[in-house]
């Protein structure tokens, strides 16, 4: 064995020692690291333990009802019925256990805009405003009751709640068609949109009214609806609020 080492060039021995040292250090460091950082399963168990050991700050959605019956009753009637009290008042476990500890109430505009500021990723119909132009310099709670927010008057335009769709239609070939051409909408839809639904066209014959080759409507492109995309609804291929075709590249991309 020693003979073998003697015969190795000294450079190899020295480099070998450095590599050995390196590998030993790394292995040692790996060995020192607790298993919970190396093994996925143990990592999750340890995380659960660590998190459950933390102090609880929130009392939960039902804790406030007991003492704030009236407010809760108001809230359950209004648009904010699905919001937990602590969403706006912050963690209030201490207060629920001992009312002498005050709960926080944030009245600044930012407390509302975090949910209501315009953001195209929010779902259809979600009430959104642009805080820059929507009654700036006043707090939201001056006009809207936070526990039962209602717009002071019912919005007249579909655009108030369907901004994205309205703006899309604005630059599409369908710009001149009012929403009500295609949707039958009860006035109550604007008051309680979830209870009173708006209607959506149900079949191909609807679009055919204007686009079929035998349609009397002028100034529309015509297709033979018997053969054109026959197995599908028209809006499985054409987005009705922006039927783009020839407009692509000219209207959408300036």
């Amino acid at each position, binding site marked *: 064995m020693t003979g073998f080492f003697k015969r190795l*060039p000294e*450079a190899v021995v020295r480099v070998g020692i450095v590599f050995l040292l390196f590998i030993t250090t790394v292995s040692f460091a790996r060995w020192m690291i607790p298993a919970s950082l190396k093994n996925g399963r143990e990592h999750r168990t340890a995380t659960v333990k660590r998190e459950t050991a933390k102090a609880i700050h929130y009392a939960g959605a039902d804790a406030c009802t007991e003492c704030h019956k009236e407010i809760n009753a108001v809230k359950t009637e209004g648009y904010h019925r699905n919001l937990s009290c602590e969403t706006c008042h912050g963690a209030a476990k201490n207060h629920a256990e001992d009312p002498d500890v005050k709960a926080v109430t944030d009245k600044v505009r930012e407390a509302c805009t975090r949910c209501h500021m315009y953001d195209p990723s929010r779902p259809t119909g979600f009430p959104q405003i642009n805080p820059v132009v929507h009654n700036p310099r006043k707090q939201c709670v001056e006009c809207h009751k936070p526990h039962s927010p209602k717009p002071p008057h019912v919005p007249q335009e579909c655009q108030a709640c369907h901004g994205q769709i309205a703006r899309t239609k604005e630059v599409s070939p369908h710009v001149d068609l009012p929403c009500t051409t295609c949707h039958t909408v009860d006035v109550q839809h604007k008051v309680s949109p979830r209870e009173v639904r708006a209607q959506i066209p149900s079949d191909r014959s609807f679009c055919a009214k204007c686009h079929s080759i035998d349609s009397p409507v002028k100034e529309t492109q015509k297709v033979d609806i018997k053969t054109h995309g026959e197995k599908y609804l028209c809006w499985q291929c054409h987005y009705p609020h922006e039927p783009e075709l020839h407009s692509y590249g000219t209207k959408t*991309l300036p």
Partner: protein
Amino acid sequence: MHTAAHAMLFLLPQTTGYIFPNEAEMPWSLLIVVYPYLTGLVAGAFILASLVKVFNVKELQPVYRLSLLTALAFLLIAPLPLLLHLGHPERSYEIFLTPNLTSAMAMFGFVYAWYLMVVLLLEIWFTYRRELIVWSQGERTVMKVVYRVLSLFSVDTSEESAAFDRKAIKVITIVGIPSAFLLHGYVGFIFGSVKANPWWSSVLMPIVFLFSAIVSGIALVTFLYMVLTTLRRERINMACLDKMASFLFYAVILDFSLEFLDFIHRLYESEESIKILSELVMNRLFFSLGVIQVLLGMFVPLGIMVLIRVLRLDEELRKLLYFVAVILIQLGIFATRWNVVIGGQMFSKSFRGLMEYKAKIGGMDGFLMTLVLLVLPFIVLTVLIKVLPPWDRPESVAR
């Protein structure tokens, strides 16, 4: 959360067409442009060095060591942009100690460690081992200790040991070439394998990256060689310079052909993304791709080198023109990285809109940090050159 929403309000007006809500902000910033740029320089510089040892290109001997040190200096800085971009550079050791074996991104750690330890450091050590012993004997102060430690307390200066060094270097270089390909091919792969992004997703990506790496590496070493030699008030070895330039010439042609091939291929395939990609190229990337990358970074340098060949210009003029060419090429390659990284994030996955990128000035991943990261390798290189002079000293011309 709130700042993100405000950033949206600020960024949205700068987009054109339709984009998805989560596309307004770009996740990969300037630093991710610097990262492939730096690794490219490493791979390129190393391949230049390997031309001497494996392919026996004698003319390049004067820049052999310089290119090794350049590769090392840039390699040491190369992971910094990534670590800074992740936001917690101080925790980076955790990545190295608990690597994720199934992540393509984490592979960089392994490729990097292999390349640094098994290729570059070893080759440099074997190259300098004998000199280190000689230098340590000539020194008195701290440097004596430094040289002793760097030589790993080696004492053997015999001709036999030198012969072994040479053999070792050859073997390491042979292993090193595929490793250098791996290093930068990997970087290309990371982009090329993103199948959701038509601007990146291409099997040619690793190869295109590789050749642009070789181009940038040779150009950088040429630049350094010219500047350093002038600073040392020595004569530039014209044979060496001409040889580097001719390699550079062929590399640029190859690089250009590959990118052109990619371009033709995309045009002919004309997939559904082609419209938005042409919008991208004609609008957002017109300057950085059309003007800087292709015109200034490829055509002008190629023109210069053709001119030099055809007109047989005299030395002074040749030097001047080479100098201009390598700077332009450097600029062009940086633009190439920009066009890949930033360009790939400038169009919406809906293929119907374009985003805009505004670099931050300050902060851990801003413009100033980018400048720092681009200067840092040169500072490291200065230190390396001070400690391990890459020029043949009169007393060490033994080899």
